[in-house]
């Protein structure tokens, strides 16, 4: 009775061995791009350890922000190569996990998922990055908290309002934290201002928005044939 079990197990192992022709050096890569990097690139290396050529049927990235390129469509036996996955960082922050799904002709519906994990460093964490008052509200001060990222040193920050409608004041809160007090001149006028936040020794700038708002008035229609253009950015004098 032991013979059928042994035969079954051996056949399963042999089947698995025969299928695994494309051997990946690693299917998960963790990257740590610098604060000014625009892209994070992962190289997924493979080798055809089988006895027949392997054809790439499809290579799909999990989102539009990631592209994947194969060096060749057919990998002869014994040949090596790599799939290059390029993740465009944009304005993303924190931990980003993107995948690339590779389909070959090794076996029907066999897919390999390659994972690219990128830790995007965040120099400043700004919370909230939006403060608002309703029209006619008491013009109280509202506070924006700024926390310096763990891998960065920022001794001071500079805040500039794009209009004179809001006053800002920066205070050090210790332990790599700052407080930005924002106060409107008055709340009778509908207005918006972009607050530019610049760490002392850095060229990089961060943004927050202050706004006096009224009752809902956005021209939004969920259904219909027309497509209004994007709203324009808030305008105003720069100090």
């Amino acid at each position, binding site marked *: 009775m032991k013979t059928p079990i042994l035969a079954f197990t051996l056949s399963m192992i042999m089947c698995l061995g025969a299928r695994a022709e494309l051997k990946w050096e690693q299917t998960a890569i963790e990257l740590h791009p610098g604060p000014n990097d625009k892209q994070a690139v992962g190289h997924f290396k493979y080798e055809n350890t089988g006895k027949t050529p392997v054809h790439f049927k499809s290579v799909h990235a999990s*989102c539009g922000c990631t592209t994947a390129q194969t060096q060749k469509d057919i990998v002869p036996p014994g040949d090596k190569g790599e799939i290059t996955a390029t993740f465009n960082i944009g304005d993303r922050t924190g931990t980003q996990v993107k995948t690339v799904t590779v389909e070959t002709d090794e076996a029907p519906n066999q897919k390999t998922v390659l994972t690219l994990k990128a830790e995007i460093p965040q120099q400043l964490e700004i919370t*909230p990055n939006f403060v*608002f008052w309703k029209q006619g509200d008491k013009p109280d001060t509202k506070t924006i908290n700024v926390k310096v990222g763990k891998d960065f040193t920022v001794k001071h920050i500079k805040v500039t309002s794009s209009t004179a409608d809001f006053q800002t004041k920066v205070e050090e809160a210790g332990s790599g934290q700052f407080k930005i007090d924002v106060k409107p001149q008055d709340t009778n006028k509908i207005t918006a201002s972009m607050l530019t936040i610049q760490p002392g020794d850095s060229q990089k700038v961060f943004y927050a928005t202050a706004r006096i708002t009224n*009752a809902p008035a956005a021209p939004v229609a969920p259904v219909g044939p027309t497509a209004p253009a994007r709203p324009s950015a808030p305008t105003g004098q720069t100090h």
Partner: protein
Amino acid sequence: MKFVLARQAAVVAALALLPAASEAIYFRDKISWRSAIPPSEMVTVEQTRGWGDTAIWVDARPDEEFASDHVPGAISLNEDRWNELLPQFLTVWAPGKKIIVYCSSLSCNASREVARRLRKEAQLSDVFVLEGGWEAWLKKNR
């Protein structure tokens, strides 16, 4: 005979469990690429029909997909140009407005991420993710 069959089944099941257990141990610290989202923050196209002007549609797809076509009245807000687009979105937002974020199957997790950042960074409430995304809206409206 029954005992032998049961024993064989147990052996095969144990063999199958070995790689599963190994994978579970190996990937225990790895995060899921698709973040969980509470059902209360998901909405269907049908649910949004009655919202009319009380809702703002946010397109989380890349610029070129937005330029190609989008929900009428939608505002582009993607993470490629978050710092530039967020202030533009905030000039349109008003208290009491619901926000419906959508992406497409090609832009994967984008709507979830944009919704999460609107809640966390801008501290806005009533932020929803459209179930089925752009493709679901297209199917119901065109």
